[in-house]
């Protein structure tokens, strides 16, 4: 007879997804791909919230995830607006070209 799926396996998967997202943020140079990696990291955090909530018999984790989703949606709208603006200004979304604040 198999045991229940342990909590730590979910946390392990969450850690793996978070690390993959962090690697993407550091190594990729395309702003939109970096943005998608950040969404992946948010999702990894959501997974650990839901896991904690489930194993503690609580719905507070679910509520947290709903608010994280709201923040992610707002971030997507504003962030992609900024990317469109920068593309109009510089003709690229390569992050190494973003040095407007250097003066």
């Amino acid at each position, binding site marked *: 007879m*198999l045991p229940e*799926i342990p*909590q*730590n*396996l979910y*946390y*392990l*998967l969450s*850690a*793996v*997804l978070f*690390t*993959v*997202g*962090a*690697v*993407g943020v*550091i*190594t*990729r*140079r*395309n702003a*939109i*791909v970096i*943005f*998608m990696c950040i*969404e*992946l990291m948010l*999702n990894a955090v*959501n*997974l650990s919230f*839901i*896991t904690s*909530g*489930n194993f*503690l*018999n*609580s*719905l*507070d984790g*679910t*509520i947290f*995830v*709903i*608010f994280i*989703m709201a923040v*992610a*949606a*707002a971030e997507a*709208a*504003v962030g992609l*607006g*900024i*990317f*469109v*603006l920068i593309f109009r200004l510089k003709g*690229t*979304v*390569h992050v*190494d070209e973003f040095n407007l604040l250097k003066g």
Partner: protein
Amino acid sequence: MIGIGIGFKWFIFIVAALMATGSSLMMVTRKNPIHSALWLIVTFFSVAILYVLLNATFIAVAQVMVYAGAIMMLVLFVIMLIHLEWGAQWASSRSFARLIGGIITVMLFLQVMAGVYTYTSVGQKGIYTAAKLAELGNTRAVGTLLYGKYAFVFEVASILLLVGIVGAVLLARKRND
């Protein structure tokens, strides 16, 4: 999930976990941003399957609708709108920075792994067990909590979304004074 066998649960968990890991790796390594976006949608679906396994059916549906539906549609739309160049996506000229970044990330992963390895579940158990959720209905329980105990936070989140919409419109507007 209530009513499915433990072996089948393990099967679903392993398949969904491998799918999530594999597709997230594919997403990070693809050169074409559109391929990255499609692989990210696969990752979101696998995580939604895990949410169902964790008794969070409402969040699973919201994940598919909000992330895989709305946000990724927006991302794909912007990718197609701004006509990305395919080359020079990787920081080939700054391999030293990439090496340092890789080392930092491995250290981060090892730290999180140490945390997971030594973690023991603490905290008070709540009242929403799987049986209670099945009896009450997941969406109903979430809604009662969201519009009751967390009503103020809910309103703040709505203001945040409004500000996000106004900001996006203001940013993307064509300025011809």
